[in-house]
């Protein structure tokens, strides 16, 4: 990461606005990890998601579009895309669950561990939150701040209506207060690859 290219954007919003921001987490945000580490390590140790929460609430996980059964045997690499979801309806929802009784239905796309590629290299991972995970973990992650691709964030923010912006009490761009018209037009980050985005309710 090149910090000189980093833009920071902090929003201080009314409660109802937070609910409207959460869906951005479906497209994913950027985290850094260590290539070769297990998914369990990434989620528990690095992202500080409790193992109880993972066991009880995150029943559906994908790595690079492949349904995952065992997070200890799932290995992260540079450019990995991880999606976390609660238990899903429908037969296919049940099929996608970790360790599903119906796992054979998706045998040809299930994640299977390849040969070990131990590495200590720092790597960039895209993490997506869906449904209840988005709702439950999203607010904390946003409060701490997370990195987004500038194109994803501008795409999201430029599509918001006036009432969304009226629910913003304070907007800090690179730590300086700004009006929403600048952000609304998406003219604030285009030259940068990543934006550090944080949202708190106040």
């Amino acid at each position, binding site marked *: 990461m090149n910090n000189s290219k980093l833009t920071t954007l902090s929003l201080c919003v009314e409660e109802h606005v937070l609910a409207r921001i959460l*869906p951005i987490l479906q497209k994913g945000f950027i985290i850094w990890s260590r290539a070769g580490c297990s998914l369990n390590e990434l989620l528990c140790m690095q992202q500080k998601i409790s193992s109880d929460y993972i066991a009880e609430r995150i029943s559906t996980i994908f790595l690079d579009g492949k349904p995952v059964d065992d997070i200890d045997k799932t290995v992260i690499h540079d450019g990995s895309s991880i999606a976390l979801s609660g238990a899903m309806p429908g037969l296919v929802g049940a099929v996608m669950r970790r360790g599903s009784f119906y796992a054979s239905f*998706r045998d040809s796309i299930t994640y299977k561990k390849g040969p070990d590629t131990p590495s200590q290299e720092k790597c960039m991972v895209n993490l997506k939150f869906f449904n209840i995970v988005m709702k439950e973990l999203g607010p904390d992650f946003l409060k701490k701040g997370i990195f987004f691709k500038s194109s994803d964030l501008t795409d999201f923010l430029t599509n918001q209506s006036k009432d969304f912006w009226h629910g913003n009490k304070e907007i800090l761009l690179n730590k300086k207060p700004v009006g929403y018209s600048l952000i609304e037009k998406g003219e604030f980050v285009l030259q940068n690859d990543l934006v550090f985005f944080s949202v708190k309710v106040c």
Partner: protein
Amino acid sequence: MEFILRIDVGAKGGPTWRKEPLGGYAGNGGRGMTSLIVSKEVPPLCHPLGARNKLVIAPGLLSGTSASMSGRISIGCKSPLTNGIKESNSGGQPGQMLARLGYAAIIIEGKPEGHDLYKIVINKDEVKIDIDNSLKMLGNYDVVDKMKNEYGDKISTISIGPAGEMKMSAASIACTDMELRPTRHAGRGGTGAVMGSKGVKVIVLDDTGKSMRTPKDPEKFKEANKIFVKGLKKHPVTGEALPTYGTNVLTNIINESGGFPTNNFKSGKFSGASKISGESEVELQTKRGGLATHGCHRGCVIQCSGIYNDKQGNFLTKQPEYETVWAHGANCGIDDLDTIAMLDRLDDDFGLDTIEMGAAIAVAMEAGLAKFGDGEAAINFIKEVGKGTPLGRILGNGAAITAKAYGVERAPVVKGQAMPAYDPRAIKGIGVTYATSTMGADHTSGYAIATNILKVGGDVDPLKTEGQVDLSRNLQIATAAIDSTGMCLFIAFAVLDQPETFQALIDLLNAFYGLTLTADDVTALGKSILKMERKFNTDAGFTAKHDRLPEYFYTEAFPPHNVTFDIKDEDLDQLYNW
């Protein structure tokens, strides 16, 4: 539910009706009832739109009781889309009302002379059948409004739109919801065309003066219902995911898995998925003053539905379900929820199956009639169907006919019926169900229920690929049984994971009817339904060759996983060997 209402629309001098005792049909409900009647009374080789086909409407075994989730209504006939047996079920209020009025089934038979349209009104005192040609070519919304004006707002209705009157194979039958809107449909297989062929536009039900059906053992029934509801509420799917996001919560997941058919089943990932996902849909609905959690009938505790308002905050349609969002969204390359909601509204009004229409439009797009992603063109296509233009009549007869008319090879159909929202190359087990179901390609034919509890057809090793045929068989058997109870299939998730919830379901049946059913009996019921349906199809000319996916699913690699459907024919042929 001690009677059958038999209506002969072909009788000399106009339609006649008679109330019959249940006789040999006693003890059946829902799909068990419709498939039994169709098997016994409809000649398998008859023309689906002819006098010898019958339309059977049956509430489930528990419909009309105070059991939660028990409002499904089954509609059966020989399908004009598949030419095989059909059971299509719907939510809404009519299931409960018909059961409370004492009818275990309505059988509409014969064929009227001339082109008059009939309105059937059923209340506690009488059955009235009148000609009402003022209803001709009205959309379902207008039909319901007229009925409301005539009979008040305590009614529910079962109706067809213009598509049913024009006897299109994608025509659905609409059932009204709690707000008396025609938003719930027996969508699949062209049941609406059969109702249209009988000249029946609308059935008005009024259960005023009738009360809930009473169980043989009220105490046990109450207790079982309590456990059942508790089980539904505590399960993360039925207690959280479905009430919060509706079925469209699946969009992100299926898209992530690479099994989300996009642009007429060309790839499994849609770049606009997050714009049409359940999460985004709920956010939009809430912002516009709609509702994200709503039941389609009284007594539903899961409440997977919702209210979708337009940009001005006015009601447009119910929350489009996952299958609709996929069919009119990703499958047509459309990533705009308002366009999808408008298509849903038009489908409901004209009386069309959203899955079949989404598939037909995608085939038309592949044929070059419009570009994938062109929402305006999709809306115009549906309007053509509503008007019955030549193009509209092609589209309204489904994906297979559209493909034939425009010389498109890639028609995602089995037995003439369009596949739903899961690609069978990525999720092969569902492909087994698509291929072998008696209903044509249908995801709900082999839904999710406790095969691990039921052990239908012996133990299955779910981790073995070979186990997929066994699992699909078990699911199809168990689903047939659930479809007979009148219970919404979405209970299956809680029943799947929680043995005590499954037991509560059996206890509800036992306490209501004074029976001592076991899980084995439930299995036996499901098996007997499938056997009947299979026999009907065999007698209608179906062979093992019809239990296959279209050729391109075996030869065209499906990105991003680049997989093909490779379950062997010999294995598929084992499905009915039990």
